[in-house]
């Protein structure tokens, strides 16, 4: 019997969603499962029927759900169809029927903030940096998940270099790269030399702006080093592809996944990670790299607790 997997989200087009899709594609290829992607669009009214349509078919062995706006519909459906296994990606809810794949984006962002701050502190000692002693952040919409990234980023920066200024802005939308690019230019203009994007397609504009302005940016969710090679300093990976793949594999292998179980993907488990881009890695001074390693260890060991925003 074929294994059928569904994924439902409004964000398949954005970094994190792309990562999920990649994981599923890989599972499709390697494990021979059947995958159905359901795009929710952006109308709250539609979500519940879409969940119902999926659950009622009874056809899917595992349903991945991504996006906080779907929570309401998810919980209702999960309660109504206890036999359908839903995996909520990127958060933990009260329901015991749902499986959770939780990513510690705050931890990853903590590392990104530390890197940005340490580099900014070096100032013009590093090629392409100025002495603004400031770092930037461009968010998509001003929503809690993005604030969670921001909180980690800020804490990382302050921990690594307390004097660094952080300018954070939001584009108000995930799909206006032009606005992302403009915001980034504004941040550069105000002294930031490194800008972290957490803004989906808007963020692509951030990365492109770093190339246009000959400055630095930090990618998010997936490996974005190649969007603006040499200008993307690092990418904060949220390895949804890995998470998704391993969960699917468990199903294929007949290992039961416990409803209500929480699968955590953090620095410790390697589910989130700061990837220094190979094009830039040589420009990063050794002491910065060492400090980053130390900070990472502190977080993993629990010496530093990274704040989270809900």
């Amino acid at each position, binding site marked *: 019997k074929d294994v059928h997997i569904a994924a439902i989200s409004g964000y398949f087009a954005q970094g994190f969603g792309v990562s999920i899709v990649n994981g599923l594609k890989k599972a499709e290829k390697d494990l021979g499962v059947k995958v159905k992607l359901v795009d929710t669009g952006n109308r709250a009214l*539609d979500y519940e*029927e*879409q969940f119902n349509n999926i659950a009622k078919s009874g056809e899917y062995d595992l349903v991945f759900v991504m996006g906080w706006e779907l929570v309401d519909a998810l919980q209702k459906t999960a309660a109504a169809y206890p036999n359908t296994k839903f995996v909520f990606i990127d958060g933990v809810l009260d329901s015991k029927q749902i499986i959770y794949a939780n990513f510690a984006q705050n931890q990853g962002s903590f590392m990104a903030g530390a890197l940005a701050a340490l580099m900014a502190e070096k100032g013009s000692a590093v090629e392409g940096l100025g002495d603004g002693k400031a770092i930037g952040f461009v968010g998509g*919409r001003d929503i809690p998940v993005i604030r969670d990234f921001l909180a980690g980023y800020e804490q990382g920066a302050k921990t690594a270099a307390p004097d660094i200024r952080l300018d954070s802005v939001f584009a*108000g939308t995930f799909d206006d790269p032009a606005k992302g690019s403009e915001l980034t230019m504004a941040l550069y203009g105000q002294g930031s030399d490194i800008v972290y994007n957490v803004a989906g397609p808007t963020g692509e504009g951030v990365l492109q702006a770093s190339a246009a302005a000959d400055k630095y940016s930090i990618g998010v969710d997936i490996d974005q080093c190649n969007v603006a090679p040499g200008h993307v300093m690092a990418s904060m990976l949220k390895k949804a592809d890995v998470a998704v793949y391993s969960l699917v594999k468990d199903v294929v292998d007949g290992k039961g996944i416990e409803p209500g179980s929480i699968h955590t993907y953090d620095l410790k488990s390697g589910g989130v990670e700061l990837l220094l881009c190979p094009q830039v890695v040589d420009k990063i001074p050794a002491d910065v790299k060492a400090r980053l390693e130390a900070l990472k260890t502190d977080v993993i060991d629990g010496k530093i607790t990274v704040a989270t925003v809900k």
Partner: protein
Amino acid sequence: MSDRIDSLLGQALAILFALGLGAIVILTVDESPLRVLVTLLNGAFGNPERIAGTLLQTTPILICGIAACISLRAGLFNIGIEGQLFMGGFWATWVGFSFNLPPVLHLLLAMAVAIIAGMAWIAIPAFFRARYNTNEVVSTILANYVAILVTSYLTINIFKRPGGLSETPPIHESAYLPELFSFSRLNWGLIIGLVLACAVHFFFTRMSRGYAVSEMGANPKFAEYGGIDIKRQIFVVLLASGAVGGLAGGVEALGVHHRFMEGFAPGFGFDGVIAALLANGSPIGTIFTALFFGALRSGSLLLEVDTTASREIITVIQALIILAVSAQITIKRRASDSTAGERRWKF
């Protein structure tokens, strides 16, 4: 009567033409039009739940459509229904979660506030349209953007509930608009919409004010000659249209979502305008066009799950239908308005 049949026939032909084009579009994305049609029908009417789902989708389109009808009949173009809906939805929610009131009273107050919010949101464009003839199409479209941003601001920066959700706290149950059946979120909003459609139909066909408004839309010079105060009436009509737009938001907030969040009800305002246009500004006709769009929307939800075609195909087909019908209307107009040519010579 034959006029009526002619025009219905014309519209039907136009819709068929658009559907034909739509079929071609579907073929280009490698899906069978027939399968799409069957899935659509199944998704929209396959079982009682799905029928209720269709009616659930129909409700906001219908109420927004009535808001549009009110302005269209007066020869005005309120494209800001979207913004009025967001405002109405937000402020109804606000009443719903910030006050503790007895059940019916709470609901009524929240509805009233939704209506007032919708009116307030159109008041300035309406004033400038009435007084200085400021193009209401553009001013109401721009106001939509502002409304969506402002409600987002209020939701996320001011009233956000704790937790990972970008939404307001839920409203108290005393402000719920009751559901009609246990198996669906379909609620009294549909009844409100139907009653409103009949009321607006009654207004335009039976009431003196409605007569004055529709004559202003049909021939403003005649209305002016008959002693109708056009400026005042423009203002009032736009306010009324905004009020219904706000009500649509109230119904969605109190009947379906019980809270306000991002993505509250995007696009329903536009759908409503289009439904009203297709119905030629008739509220009763809008019931059917709204149902048509509701079925398309609802059917497309299954389409997404059961076929490889995406829901945007439905948007494309919708647009094609509007285009076909808009041209159709004028083909008739040109044929019947033979006096226009005569008049030109008399100049």
